[in-house]
């Protein structure tokens, strides 16, 4: 963005020295992921691989391995490029975005008036993923706010998740990708979360697909129904990655595959 002078910010703030923005830990029924946690850390963490395979799957397919050493989880979420992989993951998990700052004020200028008249205590806010992604490159964060971290609900027993992405090559944005998180309760699927990457102006939560999974036994027919519902929920635009029809088809296929994998994981049949 900056290299092609699309974005020309007057100042950049290096947050590396701000404590508490980075890290990964499970506590109080959720996984806390600091906004500045590197994607490589998520990808390589045993904790995510074991307990949060949807997140772990997604982290493996963002950009490329070298980029992931520097790129952050918070950046991928807050940049809200419809092609970014983590927004759909957060929707599927029903994650909570944690922000701090001055939601109603413009970004403070480093040298200008704003910096001197800031209230002493910045406000902390929690924003549900469903309310966070408001448009392409737009989120519910105010200009005076930063994302500090994300809370992902810890999965209960019998849960599984998966991320399925079709990319033209390593490093590419998705042609389409599907994030699914679900759990089994009394032999049927409950609390399914299904969300789609790069087939709309924002990541899309496919509620009808969730409905098709919830209450089902996770058999192929239910998955087919969910897949068709997810394809219907997609709002793709034709581009070099494919036609609208093709992208819907990919959503349909990947929904089936991601759901199959999530179910296998929930049943302990797959890693």
């Amino acid at each position: 963005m900056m290299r092609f002078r699309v974005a020309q910010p007057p100042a950049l703030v290096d947050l590396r020295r701000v404590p508490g923005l980075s890290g990964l830990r499970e506590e109080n029924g959720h996984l806390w992921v600091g906004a500045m946690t590197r994607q490589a850390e998520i990808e390589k963490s045993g904790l995510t691989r074991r307990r949060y395979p949807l997140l772990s799957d997604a982290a493996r397919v963002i950009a490329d391995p070298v980029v992931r050493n520097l790129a952050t989880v918070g950046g991928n979420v807050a940049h809200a490029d419809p092609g970014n992989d983590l927004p759909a993951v957060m929707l599927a998990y029903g994650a909570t975005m944690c922000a701090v700052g001055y939601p109603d004020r413009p970004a403070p200028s480093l040298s200008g008036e704003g910096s001197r008249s800031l209230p002493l205590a910045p406000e902390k806010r929690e924003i549900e993923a469903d309310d966070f992604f408001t448009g392409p490159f737009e989120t519910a964060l105010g200009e005076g706010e930063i994302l500090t971290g994300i809370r992902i609900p810890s999965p209960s027993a019998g849960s599984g998740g998966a991320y399925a992405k079709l990319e033209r090559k390593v490093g590419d944005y998705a042609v389409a990708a599907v994030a699914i998180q679900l759990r089994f309760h009394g032999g049927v699927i409950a609390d399914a979360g299904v969300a789609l990457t790069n087939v709309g102006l924002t990541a899309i939560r496919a509620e009808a697909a969730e409905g098709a999974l919830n209450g089902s036994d996770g058999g192929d027919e239910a998955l087919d129904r969910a897949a068709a519902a997810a394809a219907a929920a997609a709002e793709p635009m034709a581009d070099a990655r494919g036609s609208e029809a093709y992208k819907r088809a990919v959503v349909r296929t990947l929904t089936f595959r991601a759901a199959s994998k999530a179910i296998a994981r929930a049943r302990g049949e797959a890693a």
Partner: protein
Amino acid sequence: MPECRGLGHSVLRKEDPRFLRGQGRYIDDITLPGMLYLDIARSPYAHAKITRIPEVGELGVPGVAAVITGKVLDQYKLAWMPTLMSDQQMVLPIDTVKYQQQEVAAVVATSRYAAADGVAALEGLIEYDPLPVVVDPHEALRPGATKVRDDKESNHIFHWEHGDRDATEKALADADVVVEQAMHLPRIHVASIETCGCVASWNPVEGHLTLYLTTQAPHAIRTVVALVTAHLGLAEHKIRVISPDIGGGFGGKVPVYPGYVIATAASVVTGKPVKWIEDRSENLAADSFARDYHMRARLGAKDGKVTALKLDTVADHGYSDAAANPSKFPAGLFHVATGSYDLEAAHVEVDGVYTNKPPGGIAYRCSFRVTEAVHAIERMVDLLARESGEDPADFRLRNFIPKDRFPYRSALGWEYDSGDYEAALTKAMDMIGYRDLRAEQAEKRARGEFMGLGISSFTEIVGAGPSKTFDILGIKMFDSAEIRIHPTGKAIARFGTKSQGQGHETTYAQIIAEELGIPPEDIAVEEGDTDTAPYGLGTYASRSTPTAGAAASIASRKIREKAKKIAAHLLEADEADLEWEQGRFFVKGSPDRGKTIQDIAFAAYTNHPQGMEAGLEAISYYDPPNLTFPFGSYICCVDIDRGTGEVSIRRFVAVDDCGVRINPMIVEGQIHGGLTMGMAPALMEEISYDADGNIHGGNFTEYLVPTAMETPKWELGETVTPSPHHPIGAKGVGESATVGAPAAIVNAVVDALWHLGVRHVEIPITPQRVWSLLDERGAALYR
């Protein structure tokens, strides 16, 4: 005597230590005192009148020293430059731009960043009136089409044809089976990881220009620069072109790009060295493209025997025919299109067309349009086999030019030097287990799984070329070697070619080692400096081994002849009584009485015969008697994902015959790389334009160069059919794989879908394309 390690040895590369330690010296590593930086403002429009370019003072950017425009260059008659195909190309436009991202004006500044700031400011201030755009070459040929070039009658550049039209039509009319297929090989870009650039250093006191340049052909460039600037008083002996280490060429570093000329002009104007390094977006959007051939082919067979080929082509050259071909060949060596098959008749036609796109085209790791030709014939032979109800392997085996027919004169007039096509295909079939895979395919198809097998049995034509037919702007396409043996028996050898990663420093040393018995590590190899290297036409079209490699042999043999005289003198024997074994002359029947080449070298400076000149050196300008014709058979096995349309290459076996292999390790490396650059356009790479001429594929997020994940593990095999006319029987190998691979992949995908009625798929075979074929036939799955 130490082991010499000439031909056939995988000697580790002499050039590697500097590259491994980060001590390579590439163009952007060159910094001269007081150097300025040049950056280029480019057009957002594909066709437009420039109505305003601001003066340097209006930019208000610190560090910017000058703005160079077409009007400035025009004062020196440098606003246009000639292309290799006798067309004209703009260096900077005087009033009109002809493609998106064309150079519009240049900024010279004290730093790289200041120059970029200057360009950003400049681009914001340049004003245009957009003009109508034509991007489709077929549309460009219609009457009343938007005219691309104001100085031309129409958008039609040239018509070229070759072969016997009537005999071809007659043979096709007589055929039992004729297949016809249109196919497009889209624009692609070599995308060497190093982009292009230069450092131009004008010395006003000496009137001398030093040009450090990313060029595959330094000597030819020097001559062109001398011809283009003669009116300014610059002469060839005052121009030194230095091609430093080159980070990949593949044909993309053959042309002269406007940036080179602008930087040179800027150095003359400012009196300071000027560096220009293009970024990747500029490289992809403005440097010469490859391919863009729209072909329609017909191939006929009678009684199971392929008889005739007709090939009609529209070649999209962009706004100028800046192709890098030998001058007599506007469509390169496209007429090798009869390939590996014994045809009665053939006729090819090519019409070159102007469109609002960047000028070109170059070869993308291929010997002048050979990839296009191979694609056409290998696709058509496959189609013909299938339409004849025969397995494509069996059909090929029956229709190959038999090995006892070489040298073979093709229907289009080439004399193929040697070949054994049956051996290569048979070997490839054995390696991959062809018949077993066919059985597996049938089983899988019954289960609804689609796999395919594709063959490409290509014949290449490389090593341009014989002076009778091959020249570039009149300069014959010989190449050269100059070898000098030092008194201590070590040597330096210089060549007219220029390695871009092929390992010339090692390979050439091995040829000399073979001929003279001096170990490769004792031979320094130099290329790329026009002040020191003998004149040559450079490295492209797989010509280095066939031409300069041959020159190395011939020069070595000249040295050996003189060495023999010196040996006779030292041994007090008659020359006729001496015999040569590697590195040593000895007296016949007395193997103990001998002199090594090192002894002889010392004597050449200390004890040479009376009447003989001192020293031990030779030069050869080698004019090849014919081209060489490497060949091979590739078999590709693909699996199709019916849910996404993805094609995955499960196995790819490549049997290459490049004649004698000098350094097998390097040869295999060339084939690995070539295969990857064959796979890439088949499955991924493309530069395309929308109706307004907006580029797609103009940076590395959109131009899809494969990573290790998309690239299969190549499996290689070899047969060896030496070239009968090359001194060591070698043929050249750098490009075979790029030429041969794409058709094998396309044939495999079509094979996988044949039962659905699919007869053709255009490249790149994207998942979307495959899925559409499946979907149209109700064969897509959603699981």
